[in-house]
């Protein structure tokens, strides 16, 4: 499955989660997400998401100058962002449970022992 398509829907909550403990700048957030296992996440997607969340009022932002180099723009989560994170965490939990239930192997249900031998899963559900 194309995980980049899946990422698009959850990038907001992923970025919020990545900075919930500690403020971070653009590439810093990318690095945290990749360390967490989201290898396919794109730099520009993360930066764009940070800007959008900031514009939506979920993040705070501040610039940290550096000696002889380009400055860094740090992002931190605020109360509105934490509320957003909690909501999205809950909806992701429901969504993930639903998907897990849908995708779980049918063999775990009691009546499915006979269903294993039946040619179609539709009939096994009807027998329940």
């Amino acid at each position, binding site marked *: 499955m194309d995980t980049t398509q899946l990422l698009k829907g959850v990038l907001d909550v992923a970025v919020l989660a990545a900075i919930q403990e500690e403020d971070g700048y*653009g*590439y810093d957030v990318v690095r945290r997400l990749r360390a967490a296992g989201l290898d396919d996440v794109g730099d520009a*997607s993360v930066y764009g998401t940070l800007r959008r969340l900031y514009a939506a009022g979920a993040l705070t932002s501040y*610039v940290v100058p550096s000696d002889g180099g380009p400055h860094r723009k740090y992002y931190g989560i605020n109360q509105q962002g934490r509320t957003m994170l909690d909501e999205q965490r809950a909806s992701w939990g429901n969504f993930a449970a639903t998907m897990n239930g849908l995708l779980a192997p049918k063999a775990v249900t009691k009546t499915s022992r006979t269903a294993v031998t039946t040619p179609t899963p539709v009939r096994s559900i009807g027998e329940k």
Partner: protein
Amino acid sequence: MSTATIASPAVTAFAAAVRTALSDLTGDEVEDLTDGLEADLTERLADGDSTDLGDPAAYAEELRAAAGLPKRAKPSSGSSVIAELRLLPARIRRDARAFATRYPVVAGIGHFLVTLRPLWWVFRAAVVTELAFVVFGASGWAPFGGSTVVVFLLVTIVSVQFGRGRWLPFAWMRGLLLIGNILLIAATPFLVARVATEVNNAWYSANYASSEPDYSQSGLTLDGNQVSNVFAYDAQGNPLTDVQLFDQDGKPLNLVGDPTATSDQDAYPAVIVPNQSVSGRLGWNVYPLSHVNASDLNDDGSIKRSATPTPAIAPFATAKPLADATSAPAPSAIPSAEATGSPTALPTATPTPAP
């Protein structure tokens, strides 16, 4: 965390290109989207993630989409000239397609011209070959002169491969090819003029250079045939003798420059001789010319004093009188029908005197 480092030129250029791609947004939006971009890019490169930053336009699109901003609607006037030029070929193609859709005739002509593309590939090879020989100062004209054939064939192969889109691994080579094509088209008129001159010279020298003066082409000719005598008749149709003829420039209307060179003395023992009565020059334009026997000529072509030139035989004893010289025009208008002389009496066919 790695420390901040000075942004490399590659990072600076990439960031600038990203900002150019976002130039349709407001300054605040661009600033908001790309603030700190150099630091992020520099760190990404330092991370060894990849040495190539990728396509700035695609990067800008991803940034824009993730930030929830609309896709680029129209190129703004603030974008760079180079970015505009890059879009130009695609824009021309789009406009051409729209035009062809509206006018089917244009589409037909377009397809016809596309079919002729191989001709252009060969032609431009010829132009390049000619250009090379002009630049390197070689004589002769391409593509058919000696070693130029080999060069021409090689250039043709390259040209055709380019035309088929082969042997152009880098995008900038296509741009270079476009510029080259434009220069070739500009140079073509001069090269064609040069080739035409050289071809003309080559043809001329091949046909005329170092050839002996051609007496068969001198003198007076009629429809390509040598005129060997001229007969004049007066208004009443009576034959005239000792008529002096001149051309439009006042030059004597000489039949031949050199009688000995044109007379076939084996077949015709008679030789046309000029009238001897013109003072100061030979009377080649005094018609009709007379004959002498070949044996009456000296070795140098002059006439022996003892010889007596005999008058040439006229084609007609009398010609048809002109209209205003007679009260009643003759029914037939063709002079030869009126001829009363011998039908075989060609002027030089026999040395016998006219009746």
